[in-house]
Each structure stands twice: as structure tokens, then as C-alpha cells.
């Protein structure tokens, strides 16, 4: 994963090369199989670790283009294979129709939030995810996951190469593995929250997963010290967790 890069991933041949892609942030680039199964496979985990190490070096290299870059989820959604549950609409041809990547992204983003159905890949529910202290946000498609745990794992991988809290010039590789981040996320230091359709900030985990996906507009993983102003019940749950 190229940290910070929102570069387009090359199409077509990468479908076979994306063995190194992170299932979480490459959104199905592994193909239908990875998408459905989530991250329970140990082999994907090992390749994911490899990827992280690689990407740390890449990230510190001064902006040189290297072969493996992260996809943007939207692009993957648009271009790659279909959900296995539905018959494939048609084979996606690489680079056809000849539309520039930034155009595809724009439309996907706008459609994603309005849950417009796309023939090839079904509904998408893109939301912004911010982690307090991380230098920038990410976008995830909630429809890619089946449970809170899957989402949590995905986010863990996605943000694991950030230094949370500090942003030194070399600070891109402070989290050696995602389990450290997972601990942090699971601890009372960080509180996962989301903004729902009504504009209220809620604690993640209260409602059934499907209901969450339907109502979530954006996600913020905030520092516990800043978790003021949440709905009282949420605060209580917060305390109960610690």
C-alpha cells in the first residue's frame, strides 16, 4: 500500500498481480473470493504484511513511481470483477471506454453516497474514514464488509502505517503491525464513532450491521479524550468498554 497515494492502479494485468494488494483498501482487487471472505485467510495476511513492509520503504522513497501502488476503492468498484452472488454483467475491458480515472472517481463518489446502483458491481456505500492524528482520510465502501469485525480489520490494515498522534517527516512506519493498532483501536484510548443520516455522532457497534451500513455517512475514530458530546448512551458504552 502506497501510503498517502491516491494514485490510480493500473488495470487489467494487475488483477493477477494484486496478490500483494490489501484486501481492505483495494476493495476486491483480489477478486470476488477475497471480497466475500474478508480477512480470515492466513495467506492473505502474510502477503499483507509483506506489502506493508514494502510500502513503508516506498513511502519514504522520494515520490518515485514503483510498481505496486494502492488502488482507490472507487476505481476498483467500477472496473473490476463483479460480486460472485450476481452473474457478471460483462467482462470489464482494461482502459475501455477511454475515460480518465479522475472522471470515474468523481462519478463513483457522487453515486456512492446516493447509493446509485452500478450494473457491474451493485450498490456502493462509500464513506470517509478519519482517524484522529492520521495525516489524511480514507474512503471505504461499507458494502464490502459483512460485519463490524471485518470493517475493523480493514481499517486496521488501512491505517496501520500511520503514526497516530505525531507526524514527523519520517513518521510513516511506526506501526509495525496492525495488531498494535488493533489494540489501540480496541482500547479506551480510541473511540470509533460515525455520523448517521440525521447528522448525529453515534458510537459504532450499537445497531445491527446492515442498519449501520444504511445509516452511516462518515466514520471518525476519535481520541477518547475528545469523545465529548456523544449521545449519553454512547458515552456509557464507552466507559463500559474500558
Amino acid at each position, binding site marked *: 500500500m502506497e501510503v*498517502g*497515494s*491516491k*494514485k*490510480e*492502479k*493500473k*488495470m*487489467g*494485468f494487475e488483477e493477477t*498481480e494484486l496478490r500483494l494488494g490489501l484486501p481492505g483498501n483495494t476493495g476486491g482487487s483480489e477478486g470476488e473470493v477475497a471480497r466475500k471472505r474478508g480477512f480470515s485467510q492466513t495467506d492473505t495476511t502474510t502477503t499483507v504484511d509483506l506489502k506493508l513492509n514494502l510500502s513503508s520503504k516506498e513511502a519514504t522513497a*522520494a*515520490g*518515485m*513511481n*514503483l*510498481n505496486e*501502488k494502492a488502488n482507490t476503492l472507487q476505481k476498483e468498484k*467500477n*472496473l473490476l470483477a463483479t460480486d460472485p452472488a450476481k452473474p457478471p*454483467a*460483462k467482462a*470489464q*475491458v*482494461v*482502459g*475501455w*471506454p*477511454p*475515460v*480518465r*480515472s*479522475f*472522471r*470515474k472517481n*468523481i*462519478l463513483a463518489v*457522487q*453515486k456512492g453516497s446516493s447509493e446509485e446502483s*452500478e*450494473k*457491474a458491481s451493485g450498490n456502493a456505500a462509500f464513506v470517509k474514514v478519519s482517524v484522529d492524528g492520521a*495525516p*489524511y482520510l480514507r474512503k471505504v465502501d461499507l458494502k464490502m464488509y459483512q460485519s463490524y469485525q471485518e470493517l475493523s480489520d480493514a481499517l486496521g490494515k488501512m491505517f496501520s502505517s500511520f503514526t497516530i498522534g505525531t*507526524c*514527523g*517527516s519520517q513518521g510513516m512506519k511506526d506501526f509495525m503491525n496492525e495488531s498494535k493498532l488493533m489494540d489501540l483501536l480496541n482500547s479506551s484510548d480510541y473511540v470509533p464513532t460515525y455520523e448517521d443520516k440525521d*447528522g448525529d455522532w453515534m458510537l459504532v457497534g450499537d445497531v445491527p450491521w446492515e442498519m449501520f451500513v444504511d445509516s452511516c455517512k462518515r466514520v471518525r475514530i476519535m481520541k477518547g479524550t475528545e469523545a465529548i458530546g456523544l449521545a449519553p448512551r454512547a458515552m456509557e458504552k464507552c466507559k463500559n468498554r474500558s
Partner: protein
Amino acid sequence: MCLCLCCVVFIFLILIFYMKMMMGSSFPEEVLEHVFSFIERDRDRNAISTVCQSWYEIERWSRRRVFVGNCYAVSPVILIKRFPDVRCLELKGKPHFADFNLVPEGWGAYVDPWIEAASKAYPGLEEIRLKRMVISDDTLKLISKSFKNFKVLVLSSCEGFSTKGLAAIAADCRNLRELDLRESEVEDLNQSSGHWLSRFPDNYTSLVSLNIACLNSEVSFTALECLVGRCPNLRTLRLNRAVPFDRLAILLRRAPQLVELGTGEASDLRPDVFSPPDVFSNLLGAFSGCKELKSLSGFWDVAPGYLPVVYPICPRLTSLNLSYAATIQSSDLIKLASQCQNLQKLWVLDYIEDLGLEELAASCKDLRELRVFPSEPFGAEPNVLLTEQGLVSVSEGCPKLHSVLYFCRQMSNEALRTIARNRPNMTRFRLCIIEPRTPDYLTLEPLDVGFGAIVEHCKDLRRLSLSGLLTDRVFKYIGTYGKKLEMLSVAFAGDSDLGLHHVLSGCENLRKLEIRDCPFGDKALLANAAKLETMRSLWMSSCSVSFGACKLLGQKMPMLNVEVIDERGPPDSRPESCPVEKLYIYRTVSGPRFDMPGFVWTKDKDSALGLS
């Protein structure tokens, strides 16, 4: 008028030359140099440099502007040797199909060696324009430190840099006029020294043009506002999505002299929540105050209800880019477009539909360029009522229309013939029928005769993109009639090598040819090898050109770089008859390049490695 001036100057030059011949004495160099300063076009300057040795010398010392269409066609060393005092450098890197992700990352087009060389040879360099190149932050820093009078930086579809590089430019380029990042990919690195926009010094006031529309990152509004406020010559401002629409009014009031504006994102503009009626009237007032505004773009996620804020300026608009405005549907588009009677350029999504284009044809009689982009390029079924009819309407109603890019799902030979007859002044015609190999929907025949009509009637056609079901016949037409054609894009077309042969042997002015997924093989390529030296480049991917033919071509034509781009591994690990994945051939005077990644092979690579 410029042409007239050139003619006059040419005549003058011919007179001088004649007098020189007759009288045996020559004019002082200063006079010639002064005369040459009126000649701007590269082709003209190239021509006068061939007259005689002294003209060659004078010309090369006085050439200030250099355009290199393929960065690998010539080297920095050769450039500097011939032109010692260049002020404006323009370079293009990757082939056009890189825009559609057909060129693997790491292929090349690094500008760093060029800037390195320029930093030593051209201290007076003022302008750098790059397209499809890779530029690093270190190089941006080098630019900011090396060229004291640096004025213009245009990075079109570039990548490899971040906001850190931008910060260096902002901080140290005291004379910067133009910073244009159009469609580049910029990494956002959170800087502890603050947002990069705030690195422009407080006493910096010379900004004329700023285009940051492609930036995905947040923008410091305060820094932006200050910058806009203190630069009285600012005429172009293209914001990115991070700049909220409702704060646009603030910027517009600071810079009412703006000529070109790109708005930010408007998705947060919900009338019921954020101080509502004020926002609308505020924006309306601000737009009304911009008496010079001629070009508008942006409009991400804008609620149709806010469109009327731009109505006051519509009659003055000559350029409108609504191709990101996925929230605006047909009726609102029509209302907007019909008020822009002076519109010359329109980029829009296919939400405009046939009806909208008909309305456009009726209202915008000065329209010269139309681009209609697909809102759902990957949907199998049409989602909008946009067909060939829309294009036909515009071709009928807009007499000055000469440049078209049109995505649609159905086309007929009849429509193409009509368009051709309506618009013989067409110079750029790019049609993309979304589903490959789609026939004429009325007759189910190939679209050969339709495109044939286009090339036959449009005698000044310089650029053509084909799509739909096409046989070798269309290439015969193109070879026969496309005498002024300079760039041709072909996909999923043709039956045999004959098709390619027609184009290579017939199109005298062909410079760039890009082909994908066509059954073209070795024969036509090898038979027309000499033609390739008269062109800038040829791209072929997913065709049937064998590795053996590539090797042969490379050996036969030393002035060409024949690059085999194949991610399956070294081409000599497969039989020679095996077709290559991708092929990029270009003429060059600087020999093989040495920055090729593993998946690119040329004949010199083998010899460099000491292999057969």
C-alpha cells in the same frame, strides 16, 4: 492576423535573402535577429534555420521557446547544444493511452534529468510545461532554487510529486505567475510548516493563474483568501473540491477581476442547515460583481437550486465545463446552457441528453468545441436519452463547431454522413461508442461508410478517434481522404494487416497513431517501416505483432526506438512468433534510453546485457 504578420515577415526574409544573393553582402545580425523574433512557430523557425549557416546560427541563439513532443526523442545534452538560451521549455512524456491506464507504472517519462541539465544551462529559464511526465519533489525544489526569473509551471497529467514540492515552489519562486496542476496526481503530505499555500510569502503578489482543481487534499482557506486578496493580477482561479461553495463568495469579492473560475465542491450546501438564504444571495451578488468572468468549471455536487447564482454571468461565458456536475440533470442543464449565447466551448455529462443538445444548437450559435462525457461508462444499459441525434442537432445548428468528443451508445452511418456534410470544417472528431464493435443500429452494418464520409468531407480533419464495428474498408477511406490527419486512435477495429497498411501508406501527415485490440500484425508494420520515421510515435497494444517482427524492425531502423512492453516477463522467454502485449515505437536522435524498467525491452537492452 498572426498569419498575416508571419507572411509579411516571410516575404521580408525572402527579400533579404534575395538581396544577399544579389549584392553579396549581408544584413547585420541584429537586424536578422530582430526579424526572427517575429517568427514564433517551431515549423517556421526550423525552416529559416535551414537557409544558410549564418541564419542557422542566429536562429539557434535566438530561439527562446522549445517544444519536445516526446521526451525520449531527443536528449537534454543535444537540446542545450543546439539552443543555448531557452526560456520556455515544453515536454511531453508518456503516450496518450497512459491516460487510460494502458501504460504500466514505472514506464518512464522522468523529467528530473532534464531539469538537472537545465538548471546548469538555462539559468534564465522562465517557463516549464510538462504533460504526462513524472516529476519529483526534489526536482520541484531544484526549480525553485535554480531559476531566478521563473514564471510559469504547468503540470498536465503529471505525477510523482507531493504538496511538499508545491511548498518549495510557493516559497521560493518570487516571480511566479502561473501554477497550473491540471489533472495531475498530487500526494498530500501533511507539512508541519503549515499548508503549502501559506508558503507564498506575504509580499508575493504576482500570481496570475492558479489551478489546483485536481488536488484531493484539504486547502487552507485562510491562506487561499489572503493569496487571492493580495494578487491584483489574478485572472484564473481553479479551486479543488475542498473549497466549499458557500465560501466562494468571499473569494469572488476579493478578486472580481477573475476571468476564469473553477468552483469547489458544493455538497455541504444544504439550504436547511447552513445559514441558507444568505448564502444564495451572497453568491449571486458575488458572481454579479465579476464582470470579466468568461470561463466556469467545477460544480462538484452542486444542488441544482444554486445554479441560478451564475445566471448573471452566463451571457458573457465563452467556456463552460460541467463535466464533473453529476448532480445536474437535463432540465437544469438546458436552462443554464440556453442563457450562454456566447458559449464557444462546452464540456458536459450525457445528462444533457438529446433534448438538451437540441436546445444548445438553438441557443449557442458560436459553439466551437463540444465534449459529452458518459455518466455511467460501465453500465451495460443506457441510463440517459443521449443518442446520435444529439450530435446531429449540434452539427446542424452550430456552424462553427469544429472539435467534438462524444460518448454515446448508438450510431448510424446516416447520422455520420449528415454530420460530415453539415460540418466540413470539422478538425477534431472523436467518437466513442461505448460498447466495442457496435454496428450501425439501423442497418446492423459496419460504420465504415459513416466514418468514410467524415474523412471525405472534412478536409481539414487533424484528429480522429474511431469506434463501433469497423472493417478494413474504413481504413481504406482514411488512407485515401485523411491527407491532413495527424492523429488517429483506433480500437477493436479492422480485419487484417491491410487496414493498418492503408493508414500508414495513405496518411501523409500522420504523426501519432495509437491502436488497441486490432488484428494488425507484422506485415503492414514491416512494409511501412520507413513511414515510422516520419511520425512521432506508434502505439499498438493487444494486437498481433510478433516479437520477431519487433526485433527485425529495431535492427532495420536505427533511428527508431522499438519498445516492447510486456509484463509477462522477458520476450525472449517465449517463441519469437508470440505476439507482444504492447508496442511503442518512436523516432529518436538520442538513441536508446537507459531508464527502462524490467517490463520494457528494446534491442539495445540485449546488447547492453551482453546477450545475443
